[in-house]
């Protein structure tokens, strides 16, 4: 792999983490002393993707703004890696007028038609619309592809099955990605899934399937490259399962009492690990790291400031946008 690509992957992951750390901080800043999920600058459920940055970075490196992504309830890493404007993203998370959905959507409902990005809070239900985007792309004769992402818990939903069957049958340009972070809230994979690897399930749809271990951004990058190329060249869908890491709780406020490996979790953080690797291979040094982090922080700070400065939506406009 080229050094620049590796550096880009690293930079992307740092940006995502930087953004989520800022959200994390702002989310918790004003919910105390009586922690109230609905209070504060950022209200509501908050599913952060820390630890899963390799998935987003590795996949989105192969995409352009013409390609589509459908994400789930944990969408920030994919949104950022796919190039979503950080300001509009932040403003939506803060529930402001300049947010992507003018504050109507929130962090589980990010829609950005300029980069064909959407997500859904309903498990696995982002897959069916992905089929439609792929259908439209194919219909137009474009070579754009759709990447449909969901967790390992989602792979036991009916929508998964129906979508993979239809995509294969109609050779739609979709890559299905299962982010296996071992957990669906408190339910471990072995309590939800009758097979060890969801890649096995690809055979049920006569499509290629591959599991990528170790949360390795480079392995993800490679496998995604093949799958996306396959889709782009009209050969149909692929199923990838990526073993990744839920570094934090399911949502903010989750004490994770159910998680036996809780104390070990931070040691598996993929970003320091990749940093170490690239340092050893002399692609990164401390100065460059500082610079990358600082650039990320600056972008993030601008976005957060923008969000905070954006007006709160006018209550009298609540009924706008039900119909065109």
């Amino acid at each position, binding site marked *: 792999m080229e050094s620049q690509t590796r550096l880009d992957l690293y930079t992307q992951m740092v940006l995502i983490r930087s953004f989520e750390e800022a959200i994390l901080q702002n989310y918790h800043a004003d919910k105390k002393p009586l922690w109230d999920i609905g209070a504060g600058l950022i209200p509501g459920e908050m599913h952060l993707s820390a630890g899963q940055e390799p998935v987003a970075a590795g996949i989105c490196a192969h995409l352009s703004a013409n390609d589509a992504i459908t994400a789930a309830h944990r969408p920030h890493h994919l949104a950022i890696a796919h190039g979503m404007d950080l300001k509009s993203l932040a403003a939506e998370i803060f529930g402001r007028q300049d947010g992507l959905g003018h504050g109507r959507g929130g962090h589980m409902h990010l829609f950005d038609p300029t980069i064909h990005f959407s997500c859904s809070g309903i498990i696995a239900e982002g897959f*069916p619309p992905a089929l*439609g985007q792929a259908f439209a792309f194919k219909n137009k004769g474009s070579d754009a592809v759709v990447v449909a992402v969901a967790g390992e818990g989602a792979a036991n939903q009916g929508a998964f099955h129906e979508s993979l069957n239809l995509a294969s049958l109609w050779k739609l340009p979709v890559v299905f990605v299962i982010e296996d972070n071992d957990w669906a809230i408190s339910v471990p994979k072995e309590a939800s899934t009758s097979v060890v690897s969801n890649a096995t399930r690809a055979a049920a749809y006569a499509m290629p399937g591959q599991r990528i271990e170790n949360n390795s951004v480079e392995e993800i990058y490679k496998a995604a490259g093949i799958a996306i190329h396959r889709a782009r060249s009209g050969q149909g869908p692929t199923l990838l399962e990526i073993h990744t890491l839920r570094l934090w709780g399911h949502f903010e406020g989750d004490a994770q009492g159910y998680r036996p490996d809780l104390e070990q979790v931070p040691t598996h953080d993929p970003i320091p690990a990749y940093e170490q690797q690239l340092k050893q291979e002399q692609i990164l040094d401390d100065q460059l790291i500082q610079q990358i982090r600082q650039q990320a922080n600056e972008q993030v700070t601008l976005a957060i400031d923008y969000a905070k400065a954006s007006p709160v939506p006018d209550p009298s406009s609540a009924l706008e946008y039900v119909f*065109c």
Partner: protein
Amino acid sequence: MAIIDTTNKVEIKNQTSSSRKLTTAKAIVEGISQQMEADPSVFVLGEDVGAYGGIFSSTTGLLEKFGPKRIIDTPISETAFIGLATGAAVEGMRPIVELMFVDFFGVAMDQIYNHMAKIHYESGGNVKVPTVLMTAVGGGYSDGAQHSQCLWGTFAHLPGMKVVVPSSPYDAKGLIISAIQDDNPVIYMFHKGIMGLPWMVKNPHAIENVPQESYTVPIGKAKVVREGSDLTIVTLSLSVHHCLDVAEEVSKEGIECEVIDLRSLVPLDKTTILNSLAKTGKLIVVDEDYQSFGLSGEIAAIVAETDPRMLKGPMKRVCVPDVPIPYARSLEYAVLPTKERIAEAIRQILL
């Protein structure tokens, strides 16, 4: 687009040389066909919409005309293919997706109401979802509890979709064209009993003159299908015809019913309802959907919110009395809004 129906009064249909008698099914097919010719982004998908031509003939002949790239048979995967319609619409296409029977909504309701219906709002207006979800409703032929429901109340309760329910070939064509042209998701519910199918009891109203040209009927305007001064019957779909038949009957006894065909539940044309009621003071709602928490209640609420004194006596509801639709004919016709039940309600309300 020759004829725009802007009246909510009894309609004067263009009996031009270009109109001929069509069944509702054929009128729908013609509407779809004309829109498909006019707009290459329109396509149809669903189970048995291709070679079979739609179980209730809503797509007959389209495959032959437009080919398998635009008239697409799907697997029995309603979640996948209705969601596909949403995604294609987001990317600028105009899918018409058929849910074979509305009774099957439960296998795909999340795609319908949490996605198709909500994306426009959640996106703050940035994404449009111009889909038509076409579906067959209604009973009366012993198809049992899972194949005979209307359920329009269920869809009208949930925000984000227009709910269109034609009762005649003319409206069916004009409304399907409006639905396809609409930038919002529209659920279009046709009653099997008005399609004019060769294998079902033929309702004489299921065939009428329909102009050849493309035309629209506006979504959201009810139609006064019969004027009358003694009482107002608010209804829709197949029941419109039952009400008209009964109205003719009781007219012989000097009772003059005004009959309103709602044509859509979302938007609901309150003005037409209230204007009529202001005149008659008596209200019957005839609805083949379940009685409670549905259409009849909504009509009552509109009146109660506006001015309960408009009602000069108790309202009557002729609906399905909160029971799964029974199979046996004797039982099914005991719960459907039959002419007998409508006539009985009319007599009671005028006591």
